[in-house]
């Protein structure tokens, strides 16, 4: 393959942040008409490498050559001028503008007298139709669409620039399988047109489905470049984790834990037809101490809304809720916290962590809040706690003073978890705790959830990955169209069973 000149040649790239060496001599080559997967655990440096290529971060060492010309990008605009387009995990478009504007913003066709709006409409429509997204109204406001559609609009934007290099950073983490297939069709079309595509995803099957070549990173260092067909899945996993260990086998271990003791007491949480107008309805669940309740359902079926009701983030206006045997009305999250309920949000960036504070400060936040502001947690206790949880949860870098924003997604998730664990909750609600994080961290978090339940903590587990819900939960509440339709004990339930229930029930 060396006779072909790569479109992008990143050679020996190094980037340092205060306290963290994010990249250390990493190289990456992208070829025309190929899908290249960038693989690695959380904190391996994938996002950093992408940001170096897109001009978000300046590099401290190495060279970036694009189509034979050496570049040092210092702004995203410069990278875009070199025909490099990026679609980020969090949709980076303007929610207040129309779909067509988002596709063409900054490149609107002009005529004498200003922007040629009819031409804007035509071009946007044209691109959307190329991607078989003709059903999206180009004049509609972006915020009126689901995250999945917004993501596809972001891709349409990069197609519109006629990019030579298209970077997709976790594009599938909020898409369902139909949408993923739709996206892959688009990716293949672009690949056949000669676009070099860099694909980052934690879904191994997707990577094997779509990529031709992959580069593996570990702890900010290059492990190697491989042809996808030459590298079996287990080989890839061990290269990512760096140990000859069977991660999948470890996942199985998570299952072997003590059965929850359901006989003796009243359930810790008991909801009866709990609901809120416009949010979710008919939530009837009972969770005993030490039990894991999984919430299953399609995107937008009301999983998060259920969690918010049980945490008091939204006020229920129907039904009853009993916590610890007594009837309660949760008016605010504060009253839920007082009852021993903790909620780890799905949106860790916006609702969970404070990115300008250190790991330690983020850890003690919830604990301080529960003690009240007058009784300060002493400094050495903070340090001890931070060190304890950094060790227990394997948070990397193991530096309690590192800023949260310099941590990878998986490690941020662990900090968020640890924050709630410090308060010793009786019920822990986890909304998508494993989204967008790699298999190693995922395994750790799943094991942690299991062992917490074995210790008597009640857990509500929400995930878009049904396998994960089935593997961990003791019983499963199934939601459809913002209504709870079933609560089934998890004794050998299969994905087909759940899907039949979802398909069959008429809410």
């Amino acid at each position, binding site marked *: 393959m060396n006779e072909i000149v790569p479109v992008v040649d990143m050679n020996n790239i190094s980037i340092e942040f205060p306290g963290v060496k994010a990249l250390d001599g990493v190289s990456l080559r992208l070829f025309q008409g190929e899908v290249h997967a960038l693989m690695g655990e959380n904190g391996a440096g994938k996002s950093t490498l992408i940001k170096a290529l897109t001009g978000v971060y300046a590099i401290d060492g190495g060279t970036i050559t694009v189509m034979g010309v050496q570049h040092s990008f210092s702004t995203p605009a410069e990278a875009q001028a070199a025909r490099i387009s990026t679609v980020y995990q969090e949709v980076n478009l*303007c929610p207040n503008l129309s779909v067509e504007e988002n596709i063409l913003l900054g490149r609107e066709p002009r005529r004498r007298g200003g*922007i040629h709006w009819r031409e804007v409409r035509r071009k946007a429509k044209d691109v959307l139709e190329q991607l078989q997204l003709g059903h999206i109204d180009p004049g509609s406001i972006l915020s009126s669409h689901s995250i999945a559609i917004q993501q596809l609009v972001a891709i349409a934007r990069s197609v519109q620039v006629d990019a030579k290099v298209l970077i997709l950073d976790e594009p599938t983490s909020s898409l369902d399988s139909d949408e993923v297939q739709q996206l892959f069709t688009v990716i293949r079309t672009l690949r056949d047109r000669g676009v070099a595509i860099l694909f980052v995803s934690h879904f191994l099957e997707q990577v094997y489905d779509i990529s031709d070549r992959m580069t593996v990173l570990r702890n900010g260092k290059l492990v190697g470049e491989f042809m996808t067909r030459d590298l079996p899945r287990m080989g890839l996993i061990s290269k990512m984790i760096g140990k000859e260990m069977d991660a999948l086998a470890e996942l199985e271990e998570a299952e072997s834990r003590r059965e929850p003791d359901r006989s003796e007491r009243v359930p810790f949480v008991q909801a009866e037809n709990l609901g809120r107008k416009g949010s979710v309805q008919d939530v009837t669940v009972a969770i005993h101490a030490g039990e894991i309740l999984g919430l299953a359902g*399609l995107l937008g079926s009301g999983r998060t809304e259920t969690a918010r009701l049980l945490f008091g983030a939204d006020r229920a206006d129907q039904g009853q809720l009993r916590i610890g045997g007594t009837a309660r009305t949760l008016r605010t999250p504060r009253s839920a916290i007082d009852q021993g309920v903790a909620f780890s949000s799905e949106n860790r960036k916006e609702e969970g962590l404070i990115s300008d504070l250190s790991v330690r400060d983020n850890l003690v936040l919830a604990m301080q809040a529960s003690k009240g502001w007058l009784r300060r947690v002493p400094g050495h206790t903070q340090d001890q706690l931070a060190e304890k949880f950094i060790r227990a949860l394997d948070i990397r870098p193991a530096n309690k003073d590192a800023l949260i924003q310099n941590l990878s997604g998986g490690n941020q998730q662990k900090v968020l978890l640890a924050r709630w664990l410090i308060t010793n909750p009786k019920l822990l609600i986890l909304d998508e705790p494993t989204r967008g994080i790699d298999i190693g961290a995922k395994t750790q978090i799943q094991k942690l959830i299991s062992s917490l339940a074995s210790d008597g903590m009640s857990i509500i587990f929400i995930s878009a990955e*049904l396998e994960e819900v089935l593997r961990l939960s003791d019983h499963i509440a199934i939601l459809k169209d913002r209504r709870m339709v079933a609560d089934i004990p998890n004794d050998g339930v299969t994905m087909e069973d759940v*899907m039949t229930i979802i398909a069959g029930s008429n809410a």
Partner: protein
Amino acid sequence: MSVLTRTPAPQGRTRISRLQGKARYAPTLATVGLFLAMFAAGAIMYPGFLSGQVFLNLLIDNTFLIVLAVGMTFVILTGGIDLSVGSVVALSMMIAAALLQAGWNPIAVIALVLLTGATFGLLMGLVIQVFEIQPFIVTLAGLFLARGLCYVISVDSITVTDPFFTAMAQARIPLTGNLFIAPGVVIALVVVAIAFYVLHQTRFGRTVYAIGGGESSALLMGLAVPRTKVLVYGISGLCSAIAGILFSFYSLSGYSLAATGLELDAIAAVVVGGTLLTGGYGYVLGSLAGVLILGIVQTFISYEGTLSSWWTRIVIGALLLAFILLQKLFSRKVKLT
């Protein structure tokens, strides 16, 4: 990975998004509707209210506020704020009055005042952008600085006797019937028209909206975010200077204490006009309607005769609160659907 099938409803979705497309105009339409309702109420309650001249007087008396609100709209659309505008108006009036007294050519005076205002705004924009400081603080510093400079020029009021300025103050452009407007109205409406054009027909204008929608997104999309942010304050400074000139035409003097608190009137007009303080949503025509509403409240109070002029403030305060609540409801609705 979920293998669950989706239940897409593309048509329903299109319909929803169309509705929301219209919902975007809701706050602005509410403002225009309120203005029409108030005008109708006035017509019923007071004889003589329904003359076209009452409406035109609203424009004549508020030319400077219209121009200020236009500049403020640009700033607020990006999610920023400009507290310095009232002081810059006063500074512009002082510079104009002092130079005219010294015998300068009025055209040269106007050019210099506009240049000063724009530069003042650009400098604040640069400080905000380069040092990443809150616009609130930087423009608050600008407020004190400009007001202080007024006193450096003169503590006392300076009367303008320049023939061009007095001519502009007294000139009336006749319209059909017995109606007339002042030249300042033409200038203010031209400023509104240019602003509308810039916001909706240029890439710069769309970048202003994009920054309000999400600054980091706009940056990642490769838009000229830093330049746009600086320019927006330059525009606000320029508008303040134009407003200063218009105020001079109106008052024929320069006084250090003039236009105190005018920045708050401008912000109120923009907010009542339907622009969200968080940026990204709003129209310059809404701000024009906002100014007219503030004006008509004043007209009402003067027609009523028995009420003290402070009632204007109370009504404006109540309106402002009502509109902010309306916006809150509006943005909640968008979130739900």
